[in-house]
């Protein structure tokens, strides 16, 4: 028996062993590890698809893939990256760190936790399997707009059910996180003492619970429109194709913050550690995050400026969208103010965090430009948008995830990673990511639409640069895998504290932490959390 009651009177770790440890796990760390490994695999799967995209776009003309297959690469690339790589990585980190950070023995609902993980591989089996079906995978873009998506062949119901399945997983995961944070905190761990990573995740979990079911509803309507004769998205029956877009983006915009908020949380942990100075404006960080989350439900129309909304609608969405820059700005300024007058060192997690602050902000700036309705009529559906969201997603969310791995991996494995290689990985990633995505701004402004397998010749040069950057970035990620594996296998032993500036409960546990994190709840005092 591995109940806590047992672990209480002999302090040896009682782990289940072998394959069952993983298949049947109820342990937040093991589940967290599975999530993280799964998301890394998915990052490579989605990345490989991106490589196919970039290879096809290297020159004008069709060289490698048929346009239909190209479209399905774009679609599945996005779905895999968003639902398979970034979201599970965030949930994995939440699993590993939240119980440790708040002084809990485990997640509140450990069995459900395991189910929300195990759904992922099965859901992706449904989705990726469609690539091998007659008629190929879904090819309508990840946004699945009808009527185009209704032309999907045999892949269609699999796509819909995969989305339902992933939604179930996310909802279970979020419920678990909320219950854990609100119910499992150690004495003294008041809400306003919660580490920011925990705060951002709670808020993310609310976003998930409120938005995923809406997506489920939207795709359900697609399903009935295709197979059961309903006409939600068909004008001939009184519906409207644009209705889908409203419902989709009501989910879709909160979704992008679901990807971004945990990243904000990570950065808010790392910068104080390496600046050896408390986070500037803790309370305003919390309020800013909450404001972003609330606003995110009122801006969905900015993805639909060109569908012909009534002008009042366009104005409303423009104002709301621009407003989000204010709380996001507060976060950026707070990070800079945290660095200000600190005593900084620049290990890999800090380097990635600094790159995050700069590159995410650049992505945010292009977002603000996109938010200006009359100009979005020129930006919409061009590579300017592609550049925008890769800056916030890749050099934003993914960079933060990379930072978090370097930051916490000594805690997870008990070994220090190879700092020199990590720095090389950082510089390669940062340089190549910019070569990859910066020129796409120019492509978009010069008029290159997105989701096309071939382009007119004036776009050639920037596409070549972008593709080379893409290949470079992709290959550099192999180094990341090498560093991670090397660190898991061995290396300099890490102390409990790991980082000189580390504050918070996670640094009071041994590295790696015991199987059940806090068997007796720790007492949390102000000094433990502070500098």
């Amino acid at each position: 028996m591995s109940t806590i009651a047992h672990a209480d009177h002999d302090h040896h770790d009682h782990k289940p062993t072998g394959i069952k440890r993983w298949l049947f796990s109820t342990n937040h760390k093991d589940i967290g590890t599975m999530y993280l490994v799964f998301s890394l695999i998915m990052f490579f799967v989605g990345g490989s698809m991106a490589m196919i995209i970039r290879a096809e776009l290297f020159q004008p003309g069709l060289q490698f893939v048929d346009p239909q297959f190209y479209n399905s690469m774009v679609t599945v690339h996005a779905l895999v990256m968003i639902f398979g790589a970034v979201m599970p990585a965030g949930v994995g980190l939440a699993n590993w760190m939240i119980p440790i950070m708040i002084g809990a023995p485990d997640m509140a609902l450990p069995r459900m936790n395991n189910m929300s993980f195990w759904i992922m591989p099965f859901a992706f089996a449904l989705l990726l399997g469609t690539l091998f079906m007659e008629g190929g995978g879904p090819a309508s873009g990840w946004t699945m707009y009808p009527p185009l998506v209704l032309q999907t062949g045999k892949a269609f119901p699999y796509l819909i059910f995969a989305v339902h399945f992933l939604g179930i997983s996310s909802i279970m995961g979020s419920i678990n996180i909320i219950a854990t944070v609100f119910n499992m905190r150690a004495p003294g761990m008041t809400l306003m003492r919660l580490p920011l990573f925990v705060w951002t995740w709670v808020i993310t979990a609310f976003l998930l619970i409120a938005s995923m079911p809406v997506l489920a509803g939207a795709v359900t309507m697609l399903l009935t429109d295709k197979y059961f004769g309903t006409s939600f998205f068909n004008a001939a029956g009184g519906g409207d194709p644009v209705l889908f877009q409203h419902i989709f983006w009501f989910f879709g915009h909160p979704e992008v913050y679901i990807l971004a908020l945990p990243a904000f949380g990570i950065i808010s942990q790392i910068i104080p550690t390496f600046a050896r100075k408390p986070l500037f404006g803790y309370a305003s960080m919390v309020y800013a995050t909450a404001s972003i989350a609330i606003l995110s439900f009122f801006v969905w129309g900015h993805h639909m400026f060109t569908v012909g909304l009534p002008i009042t609608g366009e104005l409303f969405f423009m104002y709301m969208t621009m407003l989000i820059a204010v709380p996001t700005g507060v976060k950026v300024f707070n990070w800079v103010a945290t660095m200000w007058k600190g005593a900084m060192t620049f290990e890999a997690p800090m380097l990635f965090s600094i790159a995050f602050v700069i590159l995410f902000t650049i992505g945010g700036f292009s977002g603000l430009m996109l938010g200006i309705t009359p100009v979005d009529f020129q930006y919409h559906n061009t590579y300017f948008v592609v550049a925008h969201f890769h800056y916030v997603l890749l050099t934003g969310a993914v960079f933060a995830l990379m930072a978090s791995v370097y930051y916490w991996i000594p805690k997870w494995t008990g070994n220090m990673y190879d700092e020199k290689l990590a720095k090389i990985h950082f510089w390669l990633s940062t340089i190549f990511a910019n070569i990859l995505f910066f020129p796409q701004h120019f492509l978009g402004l010069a008029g290159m639409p997105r989701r096309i397998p071939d382009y007119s010749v004036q776009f050639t040069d920037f596409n070549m640069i972008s593709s080379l950057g893409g290949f470079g970035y992709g290959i550099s990620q192999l180094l990341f895998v090498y560093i991670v594996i090397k660190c898991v296998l061995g290396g300099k032993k890490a102390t409990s504290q790991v980082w000189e500036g580390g504050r918070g409960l996670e640094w009071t546990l041994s590295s790696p932490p015991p199987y059940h994190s806090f068997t007796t709840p720790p007492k949390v005092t102000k000094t433990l959390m502070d500098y």
Partner: protein
Amino acid sequence: MASKDIYFVPESSKWPIVGSLALFTLFAGSAMLLNQSPNAKYVFIVGIAAVIYMFAGWFSNVIAESLAGKYNKQVDISFRMGMGWFILSEVMFFAAFFGALFYARVLSVPWLGGEGSGAVTHQFLWPAFKASWPMSVMPDSTNFTVYKDIVPAFGLPAVNTLILLLSGVTVTLSHWALKKAQRNYLNAWLAVTVALGGLFVYFQATEYHHAYTELSLKLNSGIFGSTFYLLTGFHGFHVTMGAVMLAVILLRSLKGHFTKNEHFAFEAVAWYWHFVDVVWLGLFIFVYWL
């Protein structure tokens, strides 16, 4: 008991992965059915069976642990939070369909009829279409079934409203009885609730039958039929699930499972039942009545 002071973390369990696999089979089976793939039926049936097996197994585990007294107050709170937020997610699921209904009524149908920004749309594409709600004549009914009439609010739907409201009362009465440890009243009121739930589903089925055969109001009767059946259909499905859960609770209660202080499962199902009730009120007002 030491275990009461400490948060219960279950030992490893096979149910989560069984559940994932079961749902996978069910989804794959459903997709195969829709694609008319060979042997789809069997995959689908295996999937259903596996899901039922998983629920039965998982819950009997939980029930056994609960009876063994492993859950303390804190675990109970986790469960409550879990159920509460799950219900919120269900609310959002229905919100998507209500959203579609309002969109159609307030925006898309009037636009097609030439109101607001729909003037050109109407002029060039659907000059003959007149907007109305319920929308009996579609912009182009070639591929749709034109219905004769809609289901009037003050017939069976009104009766069903009463039934659900009443069942909300009876489930509360049985909860009070439970808190006063009056076992007989508890079981009796619970049984009445289950019966009312069953009656509701029966009436709903009758009404569907009537609508399909006599009114030719079908799923493919344009946006009215679409929103009507998806909203009431998903609600009916939830009522069915709720009634099944109530029945399980009734069986457990007959076995003497709940005490006046510890009866989270009972409360969870009662919340769910109230949620289903509230959704129905929304349906009654916006789908049937107004």
